[in-house]
């Protein structure tokens, strides 16, 4: 008899995605439609913060991999529950 696969853990990634997508869309629309600061800088131009935000996310992924690969060391499990009262 084939056992059914255990259900995948549920999370809030979907909820967070909807929330952040809504916030980002609102921000970009206001930035593009209402504001026109005429800045020479790409990042300060309308929509530039969205580009910077995506760049930060990509940077977070790259830095996460790079630092963990180069500087990461597996940790030994330490006994005990961690925090105990004293005195």
């Amino acid at each position, binding site marked *: 008899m084939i056992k059914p696969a255990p*259900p995948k*853990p*549920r*999370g*809030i*990634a979907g909820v*967070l*995605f909807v*929330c*952040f*997508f*809504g*916030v*980002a*869309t*609102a*921000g*970009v629309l*206001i*930035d593009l439609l*209402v*504001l026109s*600061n005429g800045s020479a*800088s790409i*990042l300060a131009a309308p*929509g*530039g*913060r*969205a*580009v*910077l*935000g*995506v*760049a*930060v*996310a*990509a*940077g*977070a*992924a790259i*830095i*996460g*991999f790079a*630092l*963990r690969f180069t*500087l*990461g*060391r*597996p*940790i030994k499990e*330490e*006994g*005990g*529950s*961690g*925090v*105990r*009262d*004293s*005195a």
Partner: protein
Amino acid sequence: MFEIPLNPGFVCILAALAAFAAPRVVRPGLIVAAAAAALWLMLDREFGAAISGDQMGLPVVALDLDALNRIFGIAMLLGLIIIGTASGARRNRAEDAAILLLAGGAVSALFVGDLISFVGAASLSGIAAAWIVFASPLPNSSPSGARMLIWFGLEGLLFLVGVAFQISAGAASSILARLDLGTIGGAFIFAALLLRAGAPLAHVWIKDAIAHASPVGGAALSVFTTMLGVYALARLFPAEPVLAPIGLCMAAIGAAFAMAEDDLRRAAASGLTAQTGICVMLIGVGSPLALAAAEGHAFTLMFAFLALLLALGAVLGRQGHARASKLEGAARIMPISAALLMVAGLAVAGAPGLATYITTAIALEASTQWLNEAPWVITTALSGALLIALMLRPALQAYRAPPGALQSHEAPFPMLLAIALAMFFCLSVGVAPAWLYGLLPAELTFRPYEIERAAPQLELLGAAGVGYLVLRAVKITAPERALRLLDIDAIYRGPAAGAGRWIGVVLLRVYGAWQTQWDHLIRAAGAAVGRLVRRCDRPYRGGAWSAAQFAAIAAAIAIALLWQRM
């Protein structure tokens, strides 16, 4: 009006002594009462020096109140009230006393008006900070406390040398005023303050300390240690251009480690370093707006990181760890703590509606006054980076519950109340920033919720969140694994410590060999002397030498007799 001219920090120091004798039920109230009394002492008086005198020809100013130290004092003492509330969640007499001593030292250092008193109070707070780590019940806290003592010992040495050079220029030079980085004394004090603020290479001590301190102790360290460094830099080295690149390096290093650390308390400490770097950068920019932004940002950061570290401490207290890799299901076990953790993560990232957004907006405005765009870009990007590191990563793990029932085991009520109090201050400043402006040393009329300021911040945070979630969904982000990241401290905890041990062993062996040889030498010399003494003791027993001695003595007597007769 009835006034007591007493440095508010002294109240906390006296309360620290009382905390040793007080029973558990009294101690949280004692901490809160001490903070409230210190607040009353501070707010109930006019600006200016109140207690001053001369000791050995040097001016000693025990209390000098102005707008700069008042804003830091209010934040620290409100923070102490929150920490006192949280301290009711556990029982640790030594830590309670250490927290009061740390707060007392830091607040005293804020309000003194001369360099010698400042160094004394700052060193006291450093020792108390190490004591907090020693008092922690977590594993490996004692070695971490010893490392902190070394760091603060080094800081104290730099302070002492700097103050000695400074005083050599004349007694008036010991008054707490702007110092010149070009002088030797100024340079040493500058180095000591960078160490306190957690500048690059010295950024490791705050991570090390917070990760090994108890849940309440870690939160206390975030309020009273690095922020004292920020205050002193604003007081002694405003508009010092070298601070701008140093602050930007702090922000970059802190953000990078915050995004990659598995231990969320270490990640939070790195985030604190990053945001402290923004304050340091703004002090370096040095315009009135930038200095106001630095002071306001330090004020709001204290509450945001207090809330975050207390929330992470609540998780640590219940689950024995605060690691992202092991956080699955935490939201089902501790739903209120998890929700507060998410809001605190938003607060440190500068989400609109919360206090740090206000000061981030002022900081962005001020950072455009620098020579290039680097401060503006890094300050802007830091909000997105901290959103990912300290809000998204914990939330995604904590709300990822494995199937099946998990028993609820929420954090103790005092802890939740303390987090809620910290969040209240974040929200109240975020919603009504006018009262923060009223505390700033400079006149400020800034509208952070104008659409050209709020919309781009929402755009940035939203895009960073969406980008990270998409990358995570396609498994391009690094998986959460139980690991520890090496940092610059790996050198002195690894190879340098190994080399030190090796040198110690070699020196001990050399000393042992030298001692053995010395023993041989002493024994041989003693034997020779003994032989000589024994021989002298029996001069007439056999041998040519004895006969010669006898003949010589007889000849001497004969010559003496003849000489007398002549």
